[in-house]
């Protein structure tokens, strides 16, 4: 017992010293051949901004650590890898196979509405009835932002494909013209459109998917009319 403990402590010390001295040794001994830097692994979607990916400022701890998106549940740092069920769950990339993708890859990187329109998905509208069809309303609402951003076109069709009227009206949006004050701050904080967009539906960083209609520039340069 005594000897075993002694050995354990010694080995611990050695590993500790080794860990501390390793960089120093590595710095002093020059490599004989020039090392070719390993190529940056190319992922289908990168959630990192280009500047961070290039490693411009790797020591800044405020910058996010690089993420590898779409990890299988057993490796995604939210599921417990020691839980047996985590490895049974389906990996997301397996499910996304063949689904249309968005240009930006933000969110899931899946263009869910396109997937629905193109028939890649057939999600049920009723819990137990696979034949039930949604009640689709095709009506666009154009909102004119006060800023210089392009106008927002809200398509009811894409939303009623997924949702019932009661999901949004009247709790989130009062169904009356001019009754809803919407701004980006509220959306980012999870209100109005932000109840879904930025959580499950595509995030607000996909500006152009909402701000999609060019502003009609008035004589006064687009000011209040």
């Amino acid at each position, binding site marked *: 017992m005594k000897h075993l403990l002694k050995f354990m402590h010694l080995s611990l010390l050695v590993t500790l010293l080794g860990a501390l001295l390793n960089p120093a040794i590595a710095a002093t001994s020059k490599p004989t051949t020039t090392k070719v830097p390993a190529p940056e692994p190319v992922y289908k979607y990168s959630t990192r901004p280009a500047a961070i990916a290039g490693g411009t400022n790797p020591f800044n701890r405020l910058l*996010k650590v690089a993420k590898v*998106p779409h*990890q299988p549940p057993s490796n*995604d740092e*939210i599921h417990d890898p020691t839980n047996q069920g985590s490895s049974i769950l389906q990996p997301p990339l397996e499910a996304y196979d063949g689904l249309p993708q968005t240009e930006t890859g933000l969110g*899931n990187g899946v263009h869910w509405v396109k997937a629905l329109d193109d028939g890649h998905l057939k999600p049920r509208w009723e819990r137990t009835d696979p034949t039930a069809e949604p009640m689709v309303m095709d009506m666009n609402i154009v909102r004119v932002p006060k800023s210089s951003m392009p106008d927002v076109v809200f398509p009811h069709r894409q939303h009623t494909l997924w949702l019932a009227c009661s999901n949004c009206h009247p709790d989130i949006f009062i169904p009356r013209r001019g009754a809803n004050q919407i701004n980006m701050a509220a959306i980012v904080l999870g209100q109005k459109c932000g109840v879904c967009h930025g*959580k*499950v539906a595509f995030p607000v960083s996909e500006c152009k998917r909402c701000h999609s209609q060019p502003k009609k520039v008035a004589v006064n340069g687009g000011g209040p009319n």
Partner: protein
Amino acid sequence: MIEECFYKYKEREEKMPSLIRRTFIGRMLFVWSLSIVAFFVDPAPAMAEYGDVVINNYSDAAGMRPVVFPHWFHRIRFRCKVCHADLGFKFKAGGNDINMYKIIEGKFCGACHNGKVAWSVKNCILCHSGKPGTPIQIHESTQQELAVPTGFLTK
């Protein structure tokens, strides 16, 4: 300060029998090495899927792993309306006060997870699969990215 600690440590060491002393030193070394490692290693970023919801209202307190709800998986099979209008799930992570009694009665998850539409609640480990202590969240939501400092979620 350090000297004081050292002398106190010395005194304690002398009082202790040798075997315990050794293990004590061993433990101290272990703690030091851990702290050194923890200083240099950044926590791994959570890489779960966009929209994954961690529900931890009661799980941790009950000694279960928190529930991870994969939105993407359900979205492929059901439209939002089925759960958020018909089953009464509010658009709020952890805001539905779900417990196992309600589920077994056929409410919330139990409406489908009854062995008929989807697998039954007996498969505890498929839902209760999160890392213990993971806070309630919608993973990768804009709010989470803005409000929570980097790396704090995984700690």
